[in-house]
């Protein structure tokens, strides 16, 4: 088996590095000569600063202050020392210390220029950046109670569009960095946790009606220190093949060398509930009955019946009016209304516990994290739970060699249900699609009808357990001054265990005496990586260089078993089933990469950088295997120029420019380029004995190659008013060519498509961030941050239109945005006849297909967030608003529930139907005939899905130090968070909802999909 390819190829190097360098580095062991102790404090508040770095000049040795601001050095040097003290948010201070102990006061910094930003394979000061990178402070976003960190990013980072497709905890969301670049391959960004490429493809196989779970929910947001989003080619090209859709780098928490133990405890509890304004507006029983009669009579008349004949046969007539042996259903006035949603909704309990212990000795540091999250949905049945352990550890073997581990283990458990498309056993839809006049219970008190909401609540039994390990082992060696070698082996292993049991009370189980399914997926990604970095500074010149290589292999296996026919509902294991079937699948890909980066910085004024990466992928054949991805960038810090020196109105002014090419091959089938035959085309030779068969499966294309995205970025950073007001503006143009596509071909070939590099897509847009420190006083502060991003997506080249999802509401067509809607435009309802009139309709009433046209898209014109934080003495308040404008959505829920009133639950809007000549409405006359209700792609269901929502409001109180000092705690804060409090939108339902996780079918709103919950939590933060 090739399963451990990476391991076999890379282990020798890795071991070599661990064993060789320590031997040579022993000669530099320090001689203990003197000690230095001190305290670092805030120059304004005189409060101790914990975690500040104290660096001794001339050695690499540094320590961090403990929670009381204290530090101590034992070193081979003698007094006086020259030390540099630094801490995020404060000005660096370099000073000569002559006495011990000493007190060092740091002044708060208004500027973020010294902020350290994680870039590909390293870190940089913000002022040195030439690319476009958004940094998100994890503490700021992880207040929102969702399962995965990606869903917390909405409105927080410019250029990052986040939509939570459903309100089910732990489900996949829609996230795009600077628009969608691809069609059939993935447009998701690359996620990297502590250097490990994270699998972001759901392993869910059991049907959740078009939805999938999020593999990112296995990562505990509480362990995350910071999130960086790399957006332009300069930032992402170092990830070459993987960078086209942006890169999200997650850095988890870590201890500090020489710091005393710090214990953080965070506890929060609360509840979620449905936002009633987003729930479907159902008509009552009498209303539906009235509509049903009208529908029936009109249809009869249109079918040539007389009014009297049709009227006599209306369904909601007195019970004693028996026709053809069929009694009436009762008059509309007598028709009852039953509330199924009420049965389904609850206050869901949410809880979150996080314990973090960090610290370190002279030569080692660690972070140990333990977390538990429990999130019930406001819909009964649905629940998400995650328990996680995190252990990060570094050990210096010598001054020059360091080894380390990062580990995260998690177990995510989900109670699931189908909430999406499809007719059967739909949890949410069962409460809405059923006619409100149908009783929930029979006269005997049992649940009435198959897949009754009550039955489903009590019999749903789908759950999954995801066991995930993400970790790496690395060794870092300083080979010479400025020259550092790092080698690592990483693993992302996920075992995903699914089980499903349909007992005889459900429609699926009733036909076959129970159906039980068990599926186990195993996904393993091995990565081996070497990097060699060099840094040299002389006079005003600074040179950095990096070379490296990566080997990666991903294997996905799936085993599945199903049994039907159980003795009774208490036997659930497949072993008890009378008929058992099984299946298996296996797939693998490998990537080998080599990369380099060189940078030059002159006097912090002129910065240039060049990157080149080459990747080979097993998905492509022969000469097409390797792709080459270059990038160039430069930065001009105008603020350093002589003509601006001393100008008090400008604190920072920098221009950035970059160009580069990145690649994509994610998401396409691992064997997409090959011609294949399937072995699964079985048939029988004689009755009753199926035998194996073979058949063509896909056409090969040996010319299949990397999808390439060229991106140009121009950026401007500007800060003024003592750094209290800052702007960052970026404009970009991304052009993707050779789009990986299942190219449609004439079906007469026996195939409907093959994989090809066809098509070109452009994304261009802008990103603006404004940060302002409005008020900054000792007892009161107010900060505002606003980000707005606009992206225009356009398919520049596509030979033939491609449609997605059923009824091809959503299409990709040249000249239009992806996720565009292809509809017949209903102009109005004829006030005389009540029939809809369509654009392009012929005089005889027929509607040719040429009349169908592109109307809007699911992509917004702009989106963003507005965040405010206030502090008043010990109180703090923050509010986040997120918004999106200009996107459309076809409201599938209205499509399904504004039609034949005898077909189930009906939305109130149908009451606005045309009834008599002169009525002005957009809801046509009720009838089964004509185009009134038989045209799937009627623009009547297209709605503006722009929204503005209060994403979260949090309010906290931090105990004063005076009180704390008596308790032994260094920090204590109590807080309250409310999330998704209000949504303003014209959309009927949750404007972010879409019926499927299929990224090409966004903007098919609401159908079967629970809206996002409102949540309220109370929490406590303690630091010991």
């Amino acid at each position: 088996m090739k399963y451990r390819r990476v391991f076999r190829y890379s282990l020798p190097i890795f071991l070599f590095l661990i064993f060789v360098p320590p031997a040579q580095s022993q000669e530099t062991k320090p001689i203990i000569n003197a000690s230095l102790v001190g305290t670092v404090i805030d120059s304004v508040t005189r409060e101790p600063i914990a975690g500040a770095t104290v660096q001794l000049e001339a050695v690499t040795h540094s320590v961090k202050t403990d929670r009381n601001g204290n530090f101590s050095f034992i070193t081979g040097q003698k007094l006086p020392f020259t030390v540099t003290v630094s801490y995020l948010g404060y000005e660096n201070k370099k000073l000569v210390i002559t006495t011990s102990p000493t007190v060092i006061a740091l002044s708060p910094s208004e500027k973020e220029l010294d902020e350290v930003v994680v870039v590909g394979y390293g870190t940089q000061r913000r002022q040195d950046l030439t690319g476009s990178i958004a940094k998100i402070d994890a503490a700021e976003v992880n207040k929102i109670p969702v399962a995965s960190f990606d869903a917390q990013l909405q409105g927080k980072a410019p250029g990052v569009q986040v939509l939570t497709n459903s309100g089910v905890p732990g489900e996949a969301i829609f996230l795009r960095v600077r628009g969608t670049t691809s069609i059939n391959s993935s447009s998701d960004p690359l996620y990297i946790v502590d250097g490990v490429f994270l699998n972001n493809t759901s392993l869910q196989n059991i049907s959740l009606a078009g939805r999938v779970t999020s593999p990112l929910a296995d990562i505990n947001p509480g362990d995350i220190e910071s999130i960086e989003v790399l957006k332009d080619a300069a930032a992402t090209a170092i990830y070459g093949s993987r960078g086209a859709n942006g890169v999200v780098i997650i850095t988890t928490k870590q201890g500090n060398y020489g710091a005393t133990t710090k214990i953080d405890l965070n506890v929060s509890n609360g509840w979620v509930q449905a936002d009633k304004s987003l729930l479907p507006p159902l008509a009552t029983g009498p209303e539906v009955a009235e509509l049903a009669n009208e529908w029936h009579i009109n249809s009869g008349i249109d079918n040539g019946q007389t009014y009297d004949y049709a009227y006599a046969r209306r369904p909601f007539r007195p019970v004693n009016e028996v026709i053809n042996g069929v009694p009436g259903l009762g008059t509309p006035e007598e028709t009852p209304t039953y509330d199924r949603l009420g049965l389904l909704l609850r206050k869901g309990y949410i809880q979150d516990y996080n314990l973090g212990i960090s610290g370190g000795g002279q030569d080692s540091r660690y972070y140990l994290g333990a977390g538990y999250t429990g999130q019930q949905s406001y819909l009964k049945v649905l629940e998400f739970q995650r328990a996680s352990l995190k252990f990060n550890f570094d050990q210096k073997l010598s001054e020059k060699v360091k080894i380390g581990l990062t580990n995260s283990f998690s177990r995510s458990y989900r109670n699931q249900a189908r909430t999406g498309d499809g007719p059967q056993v739909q949890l949410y839809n069962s409460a809405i699609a059923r006619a409100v006049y149908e009783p929930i219970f029979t006269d005997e008190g049992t649940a009435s009808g198959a897949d009754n909401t009550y039955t489903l609540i009590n019999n749903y039994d789908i759950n999954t357990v995801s066991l995930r390990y993400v970790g790496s082992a690395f060794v870092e060696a300083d080979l010479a001054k400025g020259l550092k070698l790092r080698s690592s082996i990483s693993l992302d292993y996920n075992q995903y265990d699914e089980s499903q049991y349909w007992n005889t009370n459900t429609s699926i189980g009733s036909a076959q005496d129970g159906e039980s399914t068990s599926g186990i997926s195993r996904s393993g990604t091995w990565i081996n990586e070497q990097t060699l970095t060099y840094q040299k500074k002389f006079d005003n010149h600074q040179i950095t260089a990096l070379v490296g290589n990566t080997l990666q292999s991903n294997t996905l296996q799936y085993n599945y078993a199903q049994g039907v026919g159980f003795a009774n509902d208490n036997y659930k294991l497949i072993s008890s089933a009378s008929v058992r079937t099984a299946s298996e699948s296996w797939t693998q890909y490998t990537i080998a990469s080599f990369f380099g980066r060189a940078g030059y910085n002159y006097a912090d004024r002129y910065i240039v950088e060049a990157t080149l990466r080459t990747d080979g992928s097993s998905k492509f054949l022969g000469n097409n295997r390797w792709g080459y991805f270059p990038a160039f960038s430069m930065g001009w810090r105008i603020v350093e120029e002589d003509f601006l020196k001393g100008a008090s109105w400008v604190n920072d002014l920098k221009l950035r420019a970059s160009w580069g090419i990145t690649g994509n091959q994610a998401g396409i089938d691992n064997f997409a380029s090959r011609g294949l035959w399937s072995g699964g085309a079985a048939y029988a030779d004689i009755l009753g004995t199926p035998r194996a068969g073979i058949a063509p499966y896909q056409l090969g294309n040996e010319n299949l190659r990397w999808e390439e995205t060229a991106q140009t970025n121009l950026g401007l950073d500007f800060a003024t008013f003592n750094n209290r007001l800052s702007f960052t503006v970026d404009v970009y143009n991304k052009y993707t060519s050779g789009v990986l596509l299942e190219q449609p071909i004439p079906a007469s070939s026996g195939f409907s498509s093959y994989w090809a590099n066809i098509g070109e897509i452009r994304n261009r847009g802008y990103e603006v961030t404004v940060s302002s420190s409005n008020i900054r006083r000792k007892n009161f502060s107010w900060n505002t941050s606003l980000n707005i991003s606009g992206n225009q997506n356009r398919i520049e080249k596509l030979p033939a239109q491609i449609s997605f999802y059923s009824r091809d509401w959503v299409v990709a067509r040249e000249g239009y945005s992806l996720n565009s809607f292809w509809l017949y435009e209903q102009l109005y309802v004829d006030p005389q006849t009540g029939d809809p009139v369509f654009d392009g309709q012929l005089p005889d009433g027929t509607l040719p297909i040429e009349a169908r046209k592109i109307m809007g898209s699911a992509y917004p014109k702009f989106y963003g967030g507005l965040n405010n934080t206030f502090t008043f003495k010990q109180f703090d308040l923050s509010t986040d608003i997120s918004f999106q404008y200009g996107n459309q959505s076809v409201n599938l829920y209205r499509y399904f529930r504004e039609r034949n009133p005898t077909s189930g639950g009906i939305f109130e809007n149908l009451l606005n139907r045309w009834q008599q000549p002169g009525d002005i409405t957009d809801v046509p006359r009720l009838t089964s005939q004509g185009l009134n209700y038989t045209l799937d792609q009627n623009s009547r269901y297209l709605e503006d899905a722009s929204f503005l929502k209060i994403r979260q409001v949090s309010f906290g109180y931090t105990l004063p130090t005076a009180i704390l000092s008596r308790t032994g705690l260094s920090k204590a804060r109590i807080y309250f968070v409310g999330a998704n409090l209000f949504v303003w939108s014209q959309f009927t339902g949750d404007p972010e909802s879409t019926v499927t996780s299929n990224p090409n079918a966004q903007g098919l709103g609401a159908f079967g999909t629970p809206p996002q919950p409102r949540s309220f939590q109370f929490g406590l933060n303690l630091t010991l």
Partner: protein
Amino acid sequence: MNKKIIIKTWSAAVLILFASCDKFLSVDPQEYLSDEATIVDEGSARSAVRGIYDELRSNNYYGQEFHWLSLLSADNTVYVGSQIVRQQLTNHTVRADFAGIESAWNAIYSTINRANNVIDKVPDLPITADFTQATKDGFIGEAYFVRALAYFDLARTWGGVQLVLEPTTSPNDLPNVERSTLQGTYAQVLEDLNNAEALLPETTNRIRATKKTVWALKARYHLYQKEWDEAIDYATRIIDDTDNYELVRPYSAFYAGNASGTKESVFELYYDINNTNNQRYQWQPSTRGGVAWIKPSNPVNNEPGNIVELLIDPNIGGDRSALVELQTINNAPNWFGLLYYRDNSTDPAFIIRTAELYLIRAEALAERDASGDKDASLADLNAVRARANVPLLGITDVATKTDLLLAIENENRVEFALENHRWYDLVRTGRAQSVLNIASTNRLLLPIPYSQIQVDPNLKQNPGLD
């Protein structure tokens, strides 16, 4: 020193990696195999023939979609599910962008491609002691038969179509042909049937093609071509084979009680628990694990001339009333079809039944109207009626040729109430427009799928349907 060694070793390691990259990057699939060597011996040829039937029975062909196109176009069934666009079939307003026609079209051509692979590759395989010429001929013959059926289905649904007779093996050899005429398409069907007839053995197998299956399809083919003598001849070959084929009694015996492969059946498609037939799910109510989106036309919906009233009439439907059932769900009466009902979804797809051959011969005899033909025709018609336990017709009941033909038409309707005969019968006899109230003759064909017209410049839409 050490540093140099490290750097050298590392560089060497990188070089080795570069060299071994190609090996590292070579990953072969396991689930699907390369198409470079597919049909190479008897075993693979046999498997490839099974693969043809696998597509023939797929959900988009005889499993459901293709079957429904004609079923919903006639007056025996109604669609009441969420895909309201299917009502376009019943309303005869089908649009070229209706997804159902594309699914069926694609599946039929996929079946043809599988057959083409066998027809193209098997003749070149070497004969061995075990792999006899007869075995080999059998494989090729079956492929010819299925291809004939596929083109027959295309022709009767869409008219003349593109004739693709070679397998597609690469994106560089995609078919590049114009649509053939209707006559040309039917000529291809006949040629394939003749080839199949010559190659296949005269055995009985109800789930695979044999010479007898070819005869049965030829009977239907010649009836469509109004070649009465041939239709009578081929129908007689099956009807006279009484050891193997008969009208089973009672009527429901050919499908009820999980029956498969009865003597009634000339050709049916086989399903098992790993390859299921989706129809049960579509026909059965939720109380039996289905959705009942397709139903027999029935009096509850007040459809005039509905099939349920005919089936439950002892003088018309007789025993065929077993095909439908009345159930009261949530106080509301509902009629359901019972042809597809098996809990494990293994209902066969019935393609040719013995009853059809009786009615083919009855119709051909009535049309030929030579001496004695009318009596013979009535006898065949009554054979079918007798089996269904409905009163036999006397010669006075069908005084004229028109009366007799109408009686046969009506018999076809109830005999194949939930199978897809009615639409094609009415179209080929020229009766569809008057019976189903269709204004335009253009509507007797379905539109070519819109997406196909978009990707294939050779493909022109049927007149009046774009």
